[in-house]
C-alpha cells in the first residue's frame, strides 16, 4: 500500500522528480509534501480508485495526513468500493 501511495504522490507532483527519493512513511502529507487543494483531491480520488476504498469527504480530517503511516491506517478503516475496479480483482 505504501508503494502505491508513493506512486500516486509522484504522479500528482510530476514536476518534482526528486520527490520519490525523499519520501518516507513518517512524512506528513500536508506539511512535508504540501499538496495544494486541487492536488489533494486528485490524490484522494486516485487513492480511492487504485486502492479500492471509499473516502467520506464530509468526515475527512487533516489529522489523517500526519504521516503516510497514519493515512494508511485511516484507509484500512475505510469501506471498500462496492464494485471491483478491475474484472480480475477479487473482493
Amino acid at each position: 500500500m505504501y508503494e502505491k501511495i508513493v506512486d500516486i504522490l509522484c504522479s500528482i507532483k510530476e514536476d518534482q522528480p526528486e520527490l520519490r527519493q525523499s519520501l518516507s512513511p513518517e512524512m506528513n502529507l500536508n506539511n512535508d509534501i504540501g499538496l495544494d487543494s486541487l492536488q489533494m483531491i486528485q490524490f484522494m480520488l486516485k487513492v480511492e480508485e487504485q486502492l479500492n476504498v471509499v473516502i467520506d469527504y464530509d468526515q475527512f480530517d487533516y489529522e489523517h495526513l500526519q504521516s503516510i503511516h497514519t493515512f494508511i491506517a485511516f484507509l484500512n478503516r475505510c469501506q471498500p468500493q462496492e464494485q471491483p475496479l478491475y474484472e480480475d480483482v477479487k473482493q
Partner: protein
Amino acid sequence: MLSSRAVAISQLVMGSFDPETRWRDPNLARLPSMPDPDRESIVLCMDELLFPFCGPDDVLYSRCKIDPALQTYLNGLGFSFRARYRFDLNDEEELLPEQDVFKRCMFRLALDQGANDGLADRELHAAALSPYAITADTAAYLQAAGRSHPLPDLETVVRVNSKIYSHRLLATIGEKRYGTETSSASEMEEVGTILLKDGPYLVKDPFGVSGKGNLLIDNATMQRRIADHLRKQEANGLRSHFLLEPLLSKEIDFSSHWFIRASGEIDFISVQRMMNHQQNYGGSIQAYETLIRVLEDAGYFGVMESALRLLSDDGYRGFVCFDSMLLKDGEVVPIVEINARKSMGLINAYVDKVWEQYDLAGWLTFLSIGLPEGFVFERLLRALSESGLLLAVPGGYGIMPLSSNTVMVNELLSRRRMAEGSQGRRGIPKGRLYVSVVGRDDEHRGELMRGLRQLLSDLSVRVYN
C-alpha cells in the same frame, strides 16, 4: 486605524478575494473537496494585493493590518496609498476574531466597524468605491453609507460570472463551444463517457476557481466515484449543474483585461500571459507582441468586443477579465471563463503602470510556503535586502514582495491560539508569498526566482511549489 492626514479620500479600494464562494447557489451539488483552513485564511488576506489600484489620496481597506515595513517599502517604490484595516493580528491587546467573524465579507466587516467609527467613516463614505468584486454585502455597505455608486446589481454580477453564462454567450456570438452543460449526475456520467473515449476531461463548477471546483477526470472509475458523490447530494435535494469540457492540448494560457464604463464604453487594459500549472493559477506577465499579433490575426479582439457588448447590454459595468487559451495547433479559445471583477492579471497590469515609465514589466507570481517557528515578515524583507535580491529603487531590477498577511496569517493565528490554549500543536503554518519579479528578460527573472527559493531555504522556510 486610519492615518489622520486631513485630505479627502478620493477612492476606497477593498473587497474579498473569494467572491465565487459567496456567489454560489447553496442548492447546487458540489464536487468532492478537501477543506483547507490554511488556504481559506490566506485567500481572505489577499485583499492587500489591491494596493496598485490606489493613489496617494486613496484608502486601501484590508482585512488585516499590512506590515508597516512592507507599506513603507511599497511607498518608497512609488506605490502610495493610505491604509485602513479591520484586524491587527499582531496586537495582543485585541482579542482574536472568531473564525466566522474573520471570514465575513470585507464589506460586512467595514459596515460593522463603521458603526463604531463615526468621523473616519464619513470620510470613507464620501469616497468612490472600487471593489475587488461585488457581493451581497457590497449593496448593504453602500446603503449604510447612504450613497449611490454606479455599480451593477448583485444579480447581474452573479449571472455574468457563472461559467454557464460564458458557455451560453459563446453560442450567442456564434463562437465554437467546447463544453457541454449537464444537469444531473446521470447526465454527467453519460456525457463524460463519450468524452473519455477521446481522453481526459474537466468537470467545472459554475463558480469554481483556480484549484477548487474543477476536477480532471481521466478514467471511468473516477467518473463513477464523482457521479456517486453527486447522486448522494441529489438524494438530499441538491441540484447538479456542471460544465464538462475535454482537456484541450494547450500551449499558452492568457487573459485579456477590459473596463466597461458607466456609459457602456469599453476600455482595453492589457493582455496578460498566465503561468498556470495543471488547473492552478501560477502567475501573470504582460503578453509579448508576438502573442498579440497571433491574437489579432485570429480575430480574437473582435470576439472580445462582441462579448463585451453583450455583457454591457446585460447590465454589467466595471472590470472584466476573459481567461483564454492558445492551443498547440494554433487555435485560439477566446473565452474559457469570464471574471467580471478585478483579477490577478489586472493587478499585474496595474503594478506595471508604475514600471512602465522605466520601460520595465513585472512577473506577478507566488510561492506556497511553510513557515518555521518565530518567523516574522520583516526578517524576509531584511534578508531580501541583504542578499541584493530586493527591488530596492524604482526602475531597478529585483523582487518586490506584494503582501504581508498572505505570508503571515496562519503563523500569527496559530501563535495566538496556542498562547490562548485553543490550539495544541503548531504544525507548519502555510502562507503564500506574492511577488513582482522585475528582470531584464525571462532568464533574468528565472535567476531572481532561484535566488528567492535559495534565500527562503536559508531562512528554513519550506517551498511547496
